[in-house]
């Protein structure tokens, strides 16, 4: 923005006359804040290219006819066989021009590469062969809603192979690489309906991997993502049937990352033909997957004992994930209704009871914080920390209720004595927990089966208000331990929530 080549200034002068004419035929109208830079680059290139192409082809045609061989012209006229000065000139001039092009191109690219700090964060998941967008309010949709004149940052990843995030009208493109978080951003300046196309070849459905993109005023955008967040209604605003709601929840709440619906093997049992079937249990015996079983399985996954599947893998917080007390029952029923639609064993006993919300019987209260001198002021941070533990991925390995798992359970961890590999015993105080999370390589716990990944990128840094996020998490770990004490708790001065770490 601030930096403009003198040559570009000249071009900007003529832009009013010919820029549209040059660019409009080729590139889409500029509809985002980065597009003008790109169009400047294009125009510059276009003028140069036209000039040189006309020069080369013109000279060629002229020579072709002027020096054409004929009866009168059998021999070439004598002329120099080389002229170093001339040749250096036509080496040097293109060199200067392309160097200018390089600088202009790089300048535009820097803006594209660096998202502004105040951007709205939209998560993009690419998989064969559709796009899923998750908005800051938790809404998930297959349509990309973009607010007008506000920067939006996309954090993208792929579930399977390479994909390409490509909105031609908004001049934004970035490959989506599995195993990496790819980032790009856009600030749309023109309302309208556009297309997001997959640009990187991804298999059979590549050419159908197109999502609508709707750029609209901010208020309209907010309304749209609010509507998208409502799982009970469809895109047309009408209430959805229960199985449809269940399917939405399946994609929304992470079920899909472990349970397939096509019979393929996943981390958890497939949902295909599950409802109503006979489930084999560990240690012999079977159970019928009726409504009660399925509901119990969702609410108390650690009681599960399905043969061939590891206990303690499924998060045990689905009651909260589904909205907590009073709200989760209907959602669980919707999920079970969805399971029934994809099962050939579906029967009355495996269907959710008809009528109003199912009785909220036999719901164990979500793990109550054990006693342990927890300051009341930490309560707000607790909720944040708990949420973090789920979203950052801690609970994929660490159980919070004492269930043995691949990694040490967090129950009664904080403040307890931990045995190290070299035989020493240490107290799991605040410093220990902090080091363990941020520099896991430094501590070797006896009997550990794996190296813990370094979590610092997800927990500390200016975007998380320094240590705030980390401390919230450690507050939560403390809340699970009866050994928790002052030494294992974060400093009191940190009692100030980050507001969900968003």
């Amino acid at each position, binding site marked *: 923005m601030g930096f403009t080549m003198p040559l570009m200034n000249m071009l900007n002068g003529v832009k009013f006359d010919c820029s549209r004419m040059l660019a409009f035929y080729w590139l889409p109208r500029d509809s985002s804040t980065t597009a003008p830079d790109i169009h400047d680059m294009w125009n510059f290139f276009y003028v140069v290219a036209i000039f040189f192409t006309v020069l080369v082809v013109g000279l060629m045609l002229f020579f072709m006819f002027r020096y054409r061989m004929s009866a009168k012209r059998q021999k070439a006229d004598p002329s120099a066989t080389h002229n170093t000065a001339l040749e250096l000139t036509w080496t040097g001039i293109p060199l200067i021009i392309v160097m200018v092009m390089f600088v202009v191109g790089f300048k535009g690219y820097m803006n594209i590469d660096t998202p502004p700090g105040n951007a709205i964060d939209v998560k993009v998941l690419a998989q064969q062969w559709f796009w899923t967008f998750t908005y800051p309010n938790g809404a998930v949709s297959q349509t990309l809603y973009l607010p007008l004149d506000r920067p939006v940052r996309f954090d993208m990843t792929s579930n399977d192979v390479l994909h390409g995030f490509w909105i031609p009208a908004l001049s934004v493109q970035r490959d989506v690489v599995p195993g990496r978080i790819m980032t790009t951003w856009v600030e749309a300046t023109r309302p309208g309906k556009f297309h997001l196309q997959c640009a990187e070849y991804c298999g059979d459905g590549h050419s159908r991997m197109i999502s609508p993109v709707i750029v609209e005023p901010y208020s309209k955008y907010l309304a749209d993502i609010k509507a998208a967040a409502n799982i009970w209604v469809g895109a047309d605003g009408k209430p959805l049937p229960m199985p449809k709601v269940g399917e939405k929840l399946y994609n929304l709440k992470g079920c899909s990352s472990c349970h397939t619906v096509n019979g393929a093997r996943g981390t958890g049992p497939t949902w295909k033909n599950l409802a109503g079937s006979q489930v084999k249990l560990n240690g012999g015996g079977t159970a019928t997957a009726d409504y009660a079983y399925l509901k119990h399985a969702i609410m108390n996954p650690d009681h599960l004992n399905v043969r061939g599947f590891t206990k303690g893998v499924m998060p045990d917080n689905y009651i909260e994930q589904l909205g907590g007390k009073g709200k989760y029952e209907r959602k669980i029923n919707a999920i079970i209704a969805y399971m029934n639609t994809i099962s050939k064993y579906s029967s009355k006993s495996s269907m959710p009871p008809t009528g109003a919300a199912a009785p909220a019987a036999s719901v164990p209260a979500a793990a109550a914080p054990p006693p342990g001198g927890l300051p009341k002021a930490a309560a707000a941070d607790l909720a944040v920390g708990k949420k973090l533990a789920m979203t950052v991925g801690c609970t994929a390995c660490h159980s919070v209720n004492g269930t043995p798992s*691949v990694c040490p359970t967090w129950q009664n961890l904080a403040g307890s004595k931990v045995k190290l590999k070299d035989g020493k015993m240490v107290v799991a105080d605040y410093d220990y927990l902090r080091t363990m999370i941020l520099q896991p390589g430094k501590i070797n716990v006896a009997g550990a089966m794996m*190296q813990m990944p370094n979590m610092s990128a997800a927990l500390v840094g200016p975007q998380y208000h320094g240590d705030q996020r980390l401390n919230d998490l450690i507050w939560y770990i403390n809340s699970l331990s009866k050994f928790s004490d002052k030494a294992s708790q974060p400093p009191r001065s940190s009692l100030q929530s980050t507001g969900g770490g968003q």
Partner: protein
Amino acid sequence: MVNLRIAGQCLAPMCCAAYACHVLAPGQDTSQVMSMTDEQAHTPAPPPDDKVLGLLGNKKAPAMHIPGAGNLGIALLIVALGMLFAASLVSYLVVRYHMHLGPGAEIHLPPGLWVSTAILLISSGTIHWALAAVRRDQEKMLRLALAVTFALGIAFLIMQTANWLDLAAAMHRSLAAIHAQADVLLPGGAIIPADRSLVQHHDLLVLFYVFTILHGLHVLGGLIPLAVVTLRAFSGRYSRNYHPGVRYSVMYWHFLDIVWLLIFAVLELTF
């Protein structure tokens, strides 16, 4: 079993390399080499039939000795193979760099690798000795040195085979460990981090096999022309003035030695 398939995949091109050495090296061994001068190099070609009949029609065709061509050819072959090994080492290092190997399930390189390294180093010495011998017209010494080199080459391959077998057990263990955790290896891809280190150790093992077998095949590819050269030495074909086959073998063998030292050093330092 699986390794065999890999070996099969590698074998074809490696045989090509071996054959190329053959084509390049003894290709210059025409019958009239003894006193080939520049003048003769430009004499008219032999009767056309020789050349047209080609490979089977005329074993000696074409009767053309180009001074220095063989050396340059071998040098270029070495450049190409050098790129091959360089790229494979770079890929290994990049893959290794991305790994976070945890404690437990550790795999150690077989100590036999030190023995093979020693064997290869010595053989590099003996083949150089052969070159020195032929330059001094010491025919007996030449034969002995070549034969010893050949034997050492075979010994190297035997030792490498022992090393591969040595690690086979570890390979089985890592495979079994992965299979035991099969339910976390999803078709869609996600793996529970707990198994990452097992998987990665397995990756390392496979890469170890890939690179050592790749090198072993090149040794095998070098042994074939070396055998030809040795046999020719025994039939008294080489002299102080004419010994291209020996020279090419020496160049190639030193190259194999250097490549092995690099591979070995990298493996020792990072495995």
